[in-house]
């Protein structure tokens, strides 16, 4: 296990290095410069800015200096937000995105798994159909439609929750639902189809014929086998939810990290592009690592880190 963890750590560092290098090259390869605006600034001022941010140095020098600073935990300044460094941006916006993401993840897991399990156990009944209609709606209604609808009914009409912005727990409810809905639907559908598959297996029939009560059959033998694919998608899914999403943050005016992923590219804000990409990669890689460990815990047939049996 220890060897497995250390191997994965080395992989993480190598992967991050590759991501940084590729991002660095790609972002300098796309045309457009960070300081251009509709009104062109005098050449002198642009020169001063370029010098100020060290962009006048050759690219390899910039690259090495960036890596050096990164190792010291300094992700650089932001070109477009003069009063925040990239570290500031990550520090102040990640907790918001992470909290929203965790709540959304909780909603999607709880309701997604429940819906999927119930639907499969009540296969081809009204319960099943209702659950699956819900799931299809969840998959097919995009955030950009769902979020304003939630605001319209639950905030503007019924006044149950604030319309938007960030502050109290009440502020987090609607965005968490909007953010978790799609994932919930995906999990519900996945869980249902896996459950149905497992329920049709011989060993379930054996278990039933042995006289095990149905709770034992479902809990011990079906769910545990059916949940594996859900665990697999949990890695990328939670990384995506935890690091912030542009649309939900825009609609609910939430100070999360999501918009920086998009705006930094539009603004050619190089340090922010790199910073957010590194952060996202690190979260994604870590999540996949946890998923690998979870495999071993849930299914004893999978021995993490042991290549020979």
């Amino acid at each position, binding site marked *: 296990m220890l060897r497995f963890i250390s191997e994965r750590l080395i992989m993480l560092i190598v992967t991050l290095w590759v991501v940084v290098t590729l991002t660095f090259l790609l972002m300098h390869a*796309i*045309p*457009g*410069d960070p300081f*251009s*605006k*509709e*009104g*062109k*600034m*005098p050449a*002198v*001022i642009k*020169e*001063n*800015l370029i*010098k100020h*941010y060290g962009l006048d140095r050759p690219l390899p020098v910039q690259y090495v200096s960036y890596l050096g600073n990164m190792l010291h935990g300094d992700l650089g300044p932001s070109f*477009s*937000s*003069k*009063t*925040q460094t990239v570290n500031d941006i990550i520090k*102040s*916006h990640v907790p918001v995105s992470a*909290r929203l993401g965790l*709540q959304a993840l*909780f909603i999607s897991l709880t309701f997604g798994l429940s819906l999927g399990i119930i639907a499969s156990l009540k296969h081809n009944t009204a319960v099943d159909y209702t659950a699956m209609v819900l799931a299809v709606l969840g998959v097919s209604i995009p955030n950009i439609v769902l979020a*304003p609808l939630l*605001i*319209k009914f639950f*905030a*503007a009409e019924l*006044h149950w929750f*604030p*319309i*938007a*912005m960030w*502050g*109290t*727990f*009440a502020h*987090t409810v609607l965005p968490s639902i909007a953010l978790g809905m799609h994932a919930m639907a995906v999990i519900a559908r996945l869980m249902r189809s896996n459950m149905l598959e497992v329920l049709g297996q011989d060993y379930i029939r054996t278990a039933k014929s042995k006289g095990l009560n149905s709770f034992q059959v479902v*809990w*011990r033998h079906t769910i*545990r086998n059916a*949940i594996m694919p859900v665990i697999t998608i949990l890695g990328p899914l939670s990384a995506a939810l935890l690091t912030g999403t542009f649309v939900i943050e*825009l*609609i*609910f*005016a939430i*100070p*999360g990290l999501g*918009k920086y992923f998009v705006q930094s590219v*539009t*603004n050619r804000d190089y340090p922010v592009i790199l910073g957010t990409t590194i952060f996202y990669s690190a979260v994604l890689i870590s999540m996949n690592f946890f998923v690998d460990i979870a495999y071993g*815990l*849930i*299914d*004893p047939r999978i021995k993490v880190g042991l290549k020979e049996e």
Partner: protein
Amino acid sequence: MKKASKWLTLMLAIVMVASIGFAGCGGGSSAGDEPAKETPSDTPQEQVKPAVEQYLKLNARTEPPSLDPGTATDATSFTILRVIMEGLVRLDDNSQVTPGSGMAENWDISEDGLTYTFHLKNDVKWSNGDPVTAQDFEFAWKRVLDPETAADYAYQMYYLKNGEAYNSGEATADDVGVKALDDKTLEVTLEAQTPYFLQLTAFGSYYPVNKKVVEASADWAADAATYVGNGPFKLTAWAHDSEVVVEKNENYWNKDAVKLDKISWAMVNDDNTSYQLYLNNDLHVDAAPHELTYELIQKGEAVSTPILGNYYYTFNTEKEPFTNKYIRQAFAAAIDREAVVNQVLKGGQIPAYGFVPPGSSPDMGVDLRAELGDLVPATSEAKALLEKGMAELGITELPTITLSYNTSEGHKKIAEAIQQMWKQNLGVDVELFNQEWKVYLETMGTGDYQMGRMGWLGDYIDPMTFLDMFVTGGGNNYPRYANAEYDGYISQAKATGDQAVRLDAMLKAEKLLLDDMAIAPIYYYTSVYLQHDNVKGVVRHGDGATDYTWTYIE
């Protein structure tokens, strides 16, 4: 088997407990932190209260990129800066300069119009109690010009003697024409006569900064705790991407004129959400949502006000067939601007038949636009102009013509409508081409286009900010227009302080620009806003700047 199922149970339990604990924490801490935060359902009761809370809720839409006057460049930052800082003058509700309206009590101007001596008020203080001194101004202005500061808006200070030279490293700070003669006297020397210089001193880049505070900490402007201003309000909270809060500054010299206790700027950038907040009284003033603009103006709920800016198509005068002036005139004439504004945009914009927008010359006695009238030939003449131009070029068939714009649904709609008009009124098929914004700027800058979309917002309130961009070789001269006669009018206007001479030269310049039709004006920008009826005393200047200094709630 048993062991694994225990693990699963445990994991689920952990997830459950964590989430519940998490949610609980959130609720608890927020209740403690913000007891005053009202839930939407409380709002109607708030209104019934006899004494109206003087708390104005605004929407900045986005995070202000900088609240340091030295590095701020955008409308969002300047709107907030306007109430937490104050320059030598503060424009009044008619956008006029009056002595004593800002930090300066009065001033003397030398005969040649090059030297301004400002006398500061005696009782002016910073929000931390320090007196505002002439040294603060000198320090602030030189700081903007300092190449080390790398301020985008350093060029707003190029009016000062040796300003540009210092900014480009060819002169020292001591050479710059701003000097504190004593604590309360500031002497400013200009590079050339600038009749609108007093207007400029009200502009954000010309605000002072507290020398002691800035020298003590370079990051002073990044945090409400360290921020020191001299305006009617003081910055009390700044949660990035979330909210800026300012409260009445008891150290402000004219605090009796300030009626609001508190202003907050939310950062809600989604049209639908901000409109719902406005309807729910969570916002007092906001920009009208795009989709509903037309409807809201018709219903009288939204107000459209012109701002100093225009939207135009530029012709590349170095690329066939737009090397020919008649062909440019034909393409400009064939655009039905009324239709673009009323059927495509529907946002209260004003069709443009000239370049300089209305309201650009408040201190010249007459409005340049009104003097000039419409300068674009009638649509009915378009076809004849095209034929004349083609005959001059000696061609019987036009080459493929492409109109470029930066990728956006709005620009696309306009381009498609105008494409149709060219087809109908000129019989010409024009292709459309779009590029992502920053790439587009590069393409336009290198002149790799035939026709392209551009827009311009005035840097200051004077026609010159619209006209001097088209001098030969000018940085924003996208049409690559080169006309010695035009350059002559511009330098003539720039060399004098006599408003009559300036007006005459600028009138001639615009007439020539539109006769040569280097650009095809399309419409003048307007800002469409929503404002609750109980909000009074909001001052909106001609250039779109809003001042909440004297605002109150009834």
